[in-house]
């Protein structure tokens, strides 16, 4: 039997429906993404190599991310990475990573544990400045950079994307709060919510 995971923000019923042309902020909800937390000690070079062979990319260093066709790999901590991939790929990759680690690390499937949204539009920078303590100036927060920081009173993982857009990964239980915060933060510029989870 297959069940369809319910996206974290599927129930949201915000009245904010600015049209595409004049929305200062567009929130694209990616719904439930395949997410794996990989933990391995970076000094275990042979294990890191084996993992990199599975992913097809080198594990990124501090505050960096790496993107390949299969997945986006985000640095979380000196010994932890968050990997997003298609839901259909996650079991295969999880099994391959577990095998690569040979018992000396951990792979945890946290799919569905996070809301995966993307912020775009002309007001992204202003909204981020309102919301996070991190220095989001484009000189500092360059595309591909990943930071764990605060977002209003929540804790999030932010990733700078090209064109001034920003990815936000927030724990499912705080996703509603972040959405309501964004709604409040954009009352004067308009917000558009796009469900991209199908």
């Amino acid at each position, binding site marked *: 039997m297959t069940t369809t995971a319910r996206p974290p923000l599927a129930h949201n019923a915000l009245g904010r429906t600015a049209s595409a042309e004049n929305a200062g902020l567009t929130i694209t909800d990616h719904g439930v993404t395949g997410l794996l937390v990989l933990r391995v000690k970076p000094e275990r070079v042979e294990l890191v190599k084996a993992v990199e062979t599975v992913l097809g990319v080198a594990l990124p260093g501090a505050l960096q991310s790496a993107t390949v066709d299969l997945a986006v790999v985000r640095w*979380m901590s000196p010994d932890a990475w968050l990997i997003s991939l298609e839901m259909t790929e996650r079991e295969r990759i999880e099994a391959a990573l577990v095998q690569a680690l040979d018992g000396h690390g951990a792979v945890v499937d946290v799919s569905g544990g996070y809301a995966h949204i993307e912020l775009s539009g002309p007001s992204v920078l202003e909204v981020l400045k309102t919301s996070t303590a*991190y220095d989001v100036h484009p000189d500092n927060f360059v595309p591909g950079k990943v930071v*764990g*920081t605060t977002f209003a009173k929540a804790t999030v993982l932010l990733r700078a994307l090209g064109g001034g857009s920003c990815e936000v990964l927030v724990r499912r239980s705080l996703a509603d709060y972040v959405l309501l915060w964004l709604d409040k933060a954009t009352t004067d510029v308009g917000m558009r919510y796009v469900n991209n989870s199908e």
Partner: protein
Amino acid sequence: MFLIHCPYCGEDREEEEFHAAGEAHIARPLDPDACSDEEWGNYLYFRRNPRGLHRELWVHVAGCGKYFNIARDTASYQIHGSYRIGERFTWSDAEDSAAP
């Protein structure tokens, strides 16, 4: 609000991203069963709490989640350095006389 350098993220970040976790470098007795009540009590409950130079344990909760140490002046709030678990920190010569 002040900035704290996380030695794992390698950046200065807002204090809001961190939690203080008390005095650093408190060694757990190697053989707790052989401790006197006084030794065990001192380990569990007693802290130096100095006015001035102090070494503290902090955790980057909103960031990398790692614990690390900060050498800080509790009177001026000046942070003299932050360093990873397992590393040593020495005060500069001028400060050495006041250091623990």
